[in-house]
């Protein structure tokens, strides 16, 4: 018979008729033992059996009722939604005469209450009275176990009460008496007695506190802790961890016991103790606790737990660190031993923490923190097998602050950085960080007016310097040929940046500016005067693309294309090859007559094309390009309605005066860039905030963490996080690479007559050094090019364009594109896009901008999102 049913079950599982279950259940009527098997029936059959089983809840035999309850529990677990009516059945069975059935009902009810305690508050009275009856031995003797009345039922009930009493005064008060009684009666010599006792403690610690019960719980805990049994010690430590939330002073009574447990060879006990310590950490004991944790962490192999304890160390260190030195050392140890296990965010947090300091407005303390970080990193950097995340932190910090306090020479730091890059040749991320750091160091050096020891023409160097220089140079050369485009770009960017003059570099890479805020003038107001000027000269106002009418078909075709693209976010097809001459030229002509004079080489030209273009005639390259360029940008981020009348008009007018090429492109360009930037920065700000909050929470929090934070870090809120910066630069890298390479090739082009390129020097980037120098006064450092700008990659012509600028006389306009480009070099510096943009868009006038910036810095304020108006006023 049984076999028959089982065979049928298999048949059923294969997808045949369900009717057999009725037979199965019929059998269950006869033989209660078989009923249990219903619990094993698979999900789809539940509906078929359910009514029968529910019926069985009223069966005369308690064993059947009990099993029915258990079966229903299983059903409910499998599909809670469809069997929600079972809940009322469970409630009814709670009042069953038979304790076994009642006990079985506790299982599903406790599951339900775990999910939603509120709906079952009415049952508190029932649970309490049941518990009371059990504790008073009203149950038959057969339920006793080791002289304890129905301990499993008591445990279940206590767990349920703990859930129901949490934060509920009324419910808690109903429980006090019975819990107190049980604690008094518990037989603490047997295992099961202690189990019940432990449940009482955890119940006491979750319901609203009652002094008497707390006292009883404390006594029980000390009994546990004093016991010889490891199991009881374990329970004691666990209970202590629960109770400590309510009365933190309890732990102090048991200090010695806790320390004993910590030193116990039993791993389980040790971990439990660490958990307790974690809960009771304060600024007064953080050093001891974290040191202990790290010691333990070093010696275990279990990666899961290692990760957990490492992140706890970090968390505690961030929360309670008594001194900068200690904090840095602690982080060093954590990274050294578990660097590959901890979340990379921890590394980013560390960088940000070093950059921002601990949130107090104490610049001194911050720079001390940085100095001690630099010092310890220099000590540690030579060690083999440092985890990648740690090396990234080291490189970043050395780059940013390595030379800040003047203790170490640039050549020393760069030497170390080169060592890192060379000894971790397989780790591109580390190499990228190292190159970015190198660039920063060099940039700071140049900006500070010291001689750049990487350029070959600098002689009379000391031997060590020469070595570090050669090492660095060979590294950069190697990386310029790297397979990783990111590294390649960084290498080229480095070369490009160091060939700038001190002033430009100071603007591009301001010292210690990783926390500075980027402000973007989205309205391009700094161009207003220029626009005005152009109007006066007879320029036409810019008409937004949408408003243009009577445009040639060619352009409408194009613009259609653009619209289509702008509807989607990114455009993935390659940009169409520029049609150097006729067809593309038509539309702009009609758009604004003056553009005729304003031929602009299409920025997206591949090199060869551009070369021919520049050779043959700039003026022929096509005014359309100007438009194309703008459009290209719009495709990226475009609100099609975007209009900035300034650029196009002004450019056209200015072009009359000068070699138009430069002008028009330059105008279109800053425009587009600025827009992209603003988009970008906005986005990154959004990204930051949650993380920021988290850091905030872990830093100042102490017990009352999260709320406090934001206010204290208030002045820093606007700082962009290193984290996002680091992320961003990765993306950016690829893009601006092409720009850089363009620059490099620029000198190869036959320079237009107007170009005043300096004498070509030994290095290949030399040719365009001079134009920059000439422009030095014109530079507007404010342009920010946190260039997530694919458009930028279309701009191979920049350099040749800039080259023309000096002659143009329209200096203020020229400045923008140039600085744009500079900044995109800057963006290579890996840390945060945020750096340059500090001075963003303060106006077309460089001196003004610089002065204002200086003023701001003097005042010790950074533009922040919190008072944007103030800064707008301040900065014009």
């Amino acid at each position: 018979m049984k076999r028959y049913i089982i065979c049928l079950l298999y048949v059923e599982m294969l997808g045949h008729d369900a009717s057999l279950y009725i037979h199965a259940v019929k059998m269950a009527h006869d033989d209660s033992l078989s009923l249990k098997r219903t619990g094993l029936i698979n999900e789809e059959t539940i509906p078929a059996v359910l009514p029968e089983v529910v019926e069985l809840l009223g069966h005369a035999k308690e064993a059947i009722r009990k099993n029915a309850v258990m079966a229903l529990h299983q059903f409910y677990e499998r599909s809670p939604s469809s069997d929600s009516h079972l809940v009322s059945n469970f409630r009814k069975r709670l009042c069953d005469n038979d304790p076994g059935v009642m006990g079985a009902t506790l299982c599903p009810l406790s599951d339900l209450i775990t999910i939603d305690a509120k709906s079952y508050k009415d049952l508190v009275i029932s649970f309490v009275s049941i518990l009371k009856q059990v504790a008073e031995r009203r149950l038959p003797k057969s339920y006793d176990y080791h002289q304890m009345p129905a301990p499993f039922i008591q445990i279940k009930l206590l767990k349920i009460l703990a859930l129901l009493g949490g934060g509920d005064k009324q419910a808690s008060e109903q429980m006090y008496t019975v819990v107190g009684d049980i604690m008094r009666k518990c037989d603490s010599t047997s295992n099961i007695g202690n189990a019940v006792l432990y449940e009482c403690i955890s119940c006491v610690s979750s319901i609203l506190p009652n002094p008497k019960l707390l006292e009883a719980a404390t006594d029980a805990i000390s009994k546990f802790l004093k016991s010889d049994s490891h199991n009881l010690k374990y329970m004691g430590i666990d209970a202590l961890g629960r109770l400590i939330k309510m009365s933190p002073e309890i732990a102090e009574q048991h200090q010695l016991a806790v320390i004993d447990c910590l030193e116990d060879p039993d791993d389980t006990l040790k971990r439990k103790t660490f958990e307790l310590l974690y809960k009771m950490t304060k600024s007064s004991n953080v050093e001891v606790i974290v040191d202990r944790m790290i010691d333990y962490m070093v010696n275990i192999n279990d990666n899961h737990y290692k990760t957990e304890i490492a992140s706890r160390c970090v968390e505690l260190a961030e929360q309670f660190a008594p001194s900068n030195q200690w904090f840095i050392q602690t982080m060093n140890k954590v990274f050294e031993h578990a660097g590959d296990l901890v979340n990379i965010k921890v590394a980013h947090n560390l960088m940000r923490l070093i950059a921002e300091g601990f949130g107090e407005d104490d610049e001194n303390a911050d720079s001390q923190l940085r100095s001690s970080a630099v010092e310890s990193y220099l000590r540690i950097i030579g060690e083999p097998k440092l985890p990648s995340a740690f090396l990234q932190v080291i490189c970043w910090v050395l780059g940013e602050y390595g030379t800040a306090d003047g203790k170490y020479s640039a050549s020393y730091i760069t030497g170390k950085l080169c060592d890192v890059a060379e000894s971790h040749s397989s780790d591109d991320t580390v190499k990228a960080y190292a190159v970015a750091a190198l660039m920063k160091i060099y940039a700071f050096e140049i900006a500070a007016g010291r001689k750049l020891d990487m350029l070959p023409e600098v002689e009379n160097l000391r031997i060590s310097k020469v070595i570090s220089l050669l090492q660095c140079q060979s590294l950069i050369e190697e990386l310029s040929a790297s397979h990783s485009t990111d590294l390649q770009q960084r290498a080229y960017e480095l070369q490009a940046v160091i060939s700038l003059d001190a002033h430009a570099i100071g603007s591009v890479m301001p010292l210690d500016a990783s926390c500075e805020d980027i402000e973007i003038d989205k309205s391009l107001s700094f161009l207003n005067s220029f626009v005005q000027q152009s109007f006066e000269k007879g320029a036409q106002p810019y008409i937004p693309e949408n408003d243009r009418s009577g445009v040639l078909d060619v352009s409408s075709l194009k613009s259609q294309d653009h619209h289509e693209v702008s509807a989607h976010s990114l455009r993935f097809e390659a940009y169409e090859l520029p049609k150097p001459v006729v067809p593309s030229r038509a539309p702009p002509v009609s758009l604004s007559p003056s553009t005729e004079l304003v031929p602009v080489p299409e920025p997206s030209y591949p090199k060869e094309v551009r070369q021919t273009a520049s050779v043959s005639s700039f003026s022929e390259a096509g005014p359309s390009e100007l438009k194309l360029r703008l459009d290209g940008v719009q495709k990226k981020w475009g609100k099609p309605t975007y209009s900035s009348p300034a650029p196009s008009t002004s450019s056209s007018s200015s072009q009359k005066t000068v070699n138009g090429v430069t002008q028009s492109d330059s105008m279109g360009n800053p425009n587009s860039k600025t827009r992209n930037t603003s988009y970008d920065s906005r986005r990154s700000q959004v990204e930051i905030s949650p993380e920021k909050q988290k850091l905030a929470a872990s830093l100042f929090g102490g017990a009352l963490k999260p709320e406090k934070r934001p206010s204290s870090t208030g002045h820093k809120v606007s700082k962009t996080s290193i984290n996002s910066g680091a992320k961003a630069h990765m993306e950016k890298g690829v893009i601006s690479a092409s720009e850089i390479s363009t620059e490099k090739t620029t000198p190869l082009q036959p320079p237009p007559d107007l170009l005043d390129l300096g004498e070509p020097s030994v290095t290949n980037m030399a040719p365009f050094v001079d134009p920059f120098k000439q422009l030095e006064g014109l530079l507007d450092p404010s342009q920010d090019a946190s260039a997530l700008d694919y458009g930028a990659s279309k701009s191979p012509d920049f350099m040749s364009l800039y080259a023309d600028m000096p002659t143009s006389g329209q200096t203020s306009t020229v400045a923008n594109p140039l600085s744009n480009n500079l900044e995109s070099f800057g963006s290579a510096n890996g840390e945060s896009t945020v750096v340059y943009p500090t001075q963003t868009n303060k106006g077309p006038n460089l001196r003004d901008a610089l002065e204002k910036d200086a003023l701001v810095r003097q005042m010790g304020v950074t533009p922040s999102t919190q008072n944007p108006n103030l800064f707008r006023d301040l900065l014009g």
Partner: protein
Amino acid sequence: MIRGVIVMNDQGKPRLVKFYDYQTVEKQQELIRRIYGVLCNRAENVSNFIQADSICGPDTQLVYKTYATLYFVFIFDSSENELAMLDLMQVFVETLDKCFSNQLIWQVYTILDEIILGGQVLETSSAEVVKAVEEISKLEKASNTTMLVPKSISGWQSW
């Protein structure tokens, strides 16, 4: 609830495996291997509890005890009490002891089924369990002895 019960010898060979939530055979073997790896590194005279969240997922613990050359392991979550589990294991072992004089090995599962059902504790009196197991075997003999039906899912797998 109780997630699983494992009995294995000191070489890590499983003697009884029962999971109360579904685990693939591969997963079961993996769990057993990792649990054994932890158990055999435990010193003597330490606690019987192990935090198992790195092995069996979050919020799991296991209680183990060695009897002669056998490890008895209960895996469970926070809805159970560790000490109580230890006692339950004792019940199981006592019952096995009482039954083993003349029982077949598959009845180990029957005994376990009488103590734990679907991950919930069913019975804690080993005398009751012995009685139930005897009744079951009587019933089986009475119905038909030609085909012994294993008493649980785990039994079916081997069947």
